[in-house]
C-alpha cells in the first residue's frame, strides 16, 4: 500500500527521489556535531513562524486592541501563555543559535572561497533576526515596548541628512511613535521580514548545497559520507534538545506584560531586549554631537567588517586547531559583548513596574473620582443593601441592573428616611448627594466600584473625602492643584513613604505646606491603599 502510494508520488511528482537526493548529499568525513547549528537555526525560524501565526490569530493589531488581546492570550486562551512563551523565548533562542552558527563557521573558516556569498547572505539573515526582535518588541504595546521603541526611533533619526527620512519611514510623527509606527512594525514583523527571510534562507540553503559542506584539510583523500543517516540523526538530536529547552523556558520562565503603553509617563526607564544591550551601551559611551558615532557609525562599521570577513581573511584553509587568530577574535568579541552588556545592565536598572501589571484587567473603579468611590461606602454605611441587593431585585429594585430614574429630590428624601420603619440616615448632605450621583449615573466604572472595589480602598476614599484632601490634590480629574496630583502616586513613592508623610510632611518634603495628619493606623493604611490603587 505504502509502496504503491510512494510509487504513484514518484511518477507524478518526483518528490520521493527529491527526498532521496536531499538525504544522500555527499558530506565530508569530518562533518559532525559542530555542524548542527544551521539546522537548529532553520528549525528555530520555523517555530517562530508557527507560534507567530498562532498568536496572530488572537491578536488585535492596533495599539488600541493589542494590549488587551495579549492579555486575553495570556490569561484566557488555552495554552496561550505557552505559545507566547515559545515565541518570546524562541526569538532570544534564535539569536543565540544564529550567533553560535556564525561562531562555528568563523572558527572553521567555512566562509572562505568559494563560500563568501553564503557568509554574506548569512550576515543579512542575522540582521533580519534582530529586526524581527526589534519589531516584535513593540507589539504587546506595554510601557516597555513603547519606550524601548521610542529609543529605537530616536536613534534612527540621528544620522545626518537621512535621519528625518528614516524617522518618517518608522512612522514617527511630531517626534513620537504612535499608531503609524505600530502599523509599520506589525506589517514588517508579519509580512515583510518573513518574506525576505524565507527568500534569503532559500538562497542560503541553495548556496550551501551548491558548494557543499566545508571540508577540512584532513578530508583530502578521505571518502565522503552521506547526509543520511548520521548527520540527520545529529541534527534531529540537536533540534530535539533545542525544542525541549524552549518548552521548559516557555513553561517555567513566565513572560510578563506591563501596563498598557502610556505616552505621557515620561518616568519610565526603558531597557531593550538583552541582545540589544551592547548596542545600547555603545550609544551611552558617546555624548552630544558625537552621539551619532555610538548610535550609528560604530554599529555600521562593525556590520561592514562582519560582512567583509571572508575578504579580510583570505588565507588557505587550515585545521580548526591552528586557527588561533580566529579564535582570539571570537573570544575578544565575546568579551567585549559581555562587558558592554554587563555595564548596560548595571547602569540601567529595570523599571520598577510590576512585570505582570498588564495581566490583570484594569480596575475601572480606580479611574473615577474619590467622591463616587466613597459613595459606595455611604451605601454600605447606611445599610442600603438590606433592601437593595446588587445583582438581583429584593425588597428594593436591583440598582446594578439599571440606573435609578427617580429625581434627585425624591432620592434625597428617600435616603433620609428610606422606609417608615427604617432607622434615620447617618449621612451628611454632601454624602447623600454623592450617593445620588452613584445611583443615577451608574456607569460601568461606578458599578465596578460597587461590586469589586476592595473594602479598604472604599474606606480610604471616604477618608479622602471627610479629610477634604481634594481641596489641594487632584484625583482622577477632580480637586485642587495646590498639592501634587494623586494619580500615579504608586510610581513616585513607596507605601512606607506615603504613610510616614501623612504624619510629618515637612520631614519628607522640604517646605511642604501640607498640614500633618495624625490618622489612626487603620485609617492611614486604608487611605494609603486607596491612593496606591489610583492609576497614572
Amino acid at each position, binding site marked *: 500500500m505504502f509502496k504503491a502510494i510512494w510509487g504513484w508520488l514518484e511518477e507524478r511528482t518526483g518528490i520521493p527521489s527529491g527526498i532521496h537526493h536531499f538525504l544522500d548529499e555527499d558530506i565530508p568525513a569530518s562533518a559532525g556535531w559542530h555542524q548542527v547549528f544551521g539546522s537548529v537555526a532553520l528549525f528555530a525560524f520555523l517555530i517562530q513562524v508557527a507560534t507567530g501565526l498562532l498568536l496572530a*490569530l488572537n491578536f488585535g493589531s492596533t495599539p488600541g486592541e493589542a494590549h488587551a488581546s495579549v492579555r*486575553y492570550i495570556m490569561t484566557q486562551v*488555552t495554552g496561550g501563555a505557552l*505559545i507566547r512563551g*515559545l515565541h518570546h523565548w524562541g526569538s532570544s533562542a534564535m539569536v543565540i543559535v544564529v550567533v553560535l552558527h556564525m561562531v562555528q563557521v568563523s572558527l572553521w573558516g567555512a566562509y572562505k572561497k568559494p563560500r563568501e556569498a553564503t557568509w554574506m547572505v548569512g550576515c543579512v539573515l542575522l540582521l533580519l533576526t534582530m529586526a524581527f526582535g526589534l519589531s516584535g518588541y513593540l507589539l504587546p504595546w506595554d510601557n516597555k515596548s513603547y519606550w524601548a521603541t521610542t529609543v529605537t526611533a530616536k536613534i534612527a533619526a540621528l544620522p545626518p541628512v537621512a535621519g528625518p527620512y528614516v524617522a518618517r519611514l518608522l512612522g514617527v510623527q511630531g517626534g513620537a511613535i504612535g499608531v503609524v509606527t505600530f502599523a509599520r512594525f506589525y506589517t514588517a514583523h508579519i509580512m515583510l521580514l518573513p518574506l525576505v527571510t524565507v527568500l534569503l534562507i532559500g538562497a542560503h540553503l541553495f548556496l550551501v548545497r551548491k558548494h557543499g559542506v566545508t571540508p577540512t584539510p584532513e578530508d583530502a583523500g578521505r571518502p565522503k559520507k552521506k547526509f543520511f543517516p548520521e548527520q540527520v540523526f545529529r541534527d*534531529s538530536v540537536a533540534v*530535539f534538545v533545542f525544542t525541549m529547552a524552549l518548552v521548559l523556558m516557555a513553561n517555567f520562565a513566565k513572560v510578563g506584560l506591563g501596563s498598557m503603553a502610556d505616552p505621557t509617563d515620561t518616568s519610565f526607564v526603558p531597557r531593550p531586549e538583552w541582545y540589544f544591550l551592547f548596542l545600547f551601551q555603545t550609544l551611552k559611551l558617546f555624548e552630544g554631537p558625537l552621539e551619532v558615532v555610538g548610535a550609528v557609525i560604530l554599529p555600521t562599521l562593525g556590520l561592514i567588517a562582519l560582512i567583509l570577513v571572508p575578504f579580510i581573511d583570505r588565507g588557505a584553509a587550515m585545521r580548526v586547531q591552528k586557527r588561533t587568530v580566529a579564535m582570539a577574535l571570537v573570544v575578544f568579541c565575546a568579551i567585549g559583548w559581555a562587558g558592554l552588556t554587563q555595564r548596560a545592565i548595571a547602569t540601567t536598572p529595570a523599571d520598577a513596574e510590576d512585570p505582570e501589571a498588564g495581566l490583570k484587567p484594569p480596575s475601572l473603579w480606580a479611574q473615577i473620582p474619590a467622591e463616587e468611590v466613597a459613595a459606595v461606602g455611604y451605601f454600605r454605611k447606611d445599610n442600603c443593601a438590606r433592601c437593595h441587593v446588587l445583582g438581583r431585585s429584593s425588597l428594593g429594585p436591583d440598582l446594578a441592573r439599571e440606573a435609578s430614574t427617580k429625581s434627585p429630590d425624591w432620592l434625597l428624601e428617600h435616603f433620609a428616611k428610606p422606609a417608615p420603619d427604617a432607622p434615620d440616615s447617618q449621612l451628611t448632605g454632601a454624602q447623600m448627594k454623592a450617593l445620588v450621583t452613584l445611583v443615577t449615573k451608574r456607569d460601568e466604572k461606578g458599578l465596578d466600584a460597587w461590586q469589586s472595589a476592595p473594602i479598604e480602598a472604599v474606606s480610604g476614599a471616604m477618608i479622602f473625602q471627610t479629610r477634604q484632601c481634594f481641596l489641594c490634590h487632584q484625583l482622577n480629574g477632580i480637586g485642587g492643584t495646590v498639592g501634587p496630583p494623586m494619580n500615579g502616586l504608586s510610581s513616585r513613592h513607596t507605601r512606607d513613604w506615603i504613610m510616614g508623610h501623612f504624619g510629618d510632611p515637612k520631614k519628607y518634603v522640604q517646605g511642604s505646606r501640607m498640614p500633618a495628619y495624625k490618622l489612626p493606623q487603620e485609617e492611614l493604611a486604608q487611605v494609603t491603599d486607596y491612593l496606591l490603587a489610583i492609576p497614572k
Partner: protein
Amino acid sequence: MGLTMSSENSGTTTRRSFYSVLINLFGGLIAAVIAIPAGAYLLLKPKNSGADEMVEIADVGTLEIGKPKEVVYFRTRVDGWKSSKEKTTAWVVKNSAGEVIAFDPICTHLGCAYHWEDDQKEFLCPCHTSSFGIDGKVLGGPAPRPLDRYVTKIEGGKLLISPDLQKA
C-alpha cells in the same frame, strides 16, 4: 511521512534503520510538543471572564398566565478580549402549572423578530408569516422547528435566564 527508505547498496541496513527509528521518534516528539498546545490553543474554549451565566430578568409573580411578555434585559457579551453590555430581549410565557418558558426572540426560519398576536393567540413572524403556538410549536408557515428556548431557572420567585439556547 517518515524516513523509512532502506539502503539498496550496503550491508548496513540495520544501522540505517536504527537511525531512522530514532530520527522519526525525535521528529514525532517535536511535532507533538508543538502540535498539542497548538491544537488546544485553537480548538478549546477560552476561559470566560466577565460573562454572566444566569441573569435575573423578571419577577415570576408579575407574569400573567397565558400572556407572553417580551422582557428587555441587559447581558454582558464577551467577544474575545472585549466585553460589552448589550440590551437583549426574550419572550417569556408562564403556563397554568406555574412553569416559565423563555423563548429566543428570533424566528427559527430566517432570524426575523416575531411578536405575539393576542387576537389569534399565536406568535407571528412578519417576514414569511411563520406562526407558533404559545408553547413554541410551529402552527404554520416555513419555520423548520419550534421556537428556541433559553435555559432558565426560578430562584426565590425570580426568573433567571442563561445565554444558552435549547434547540427543539
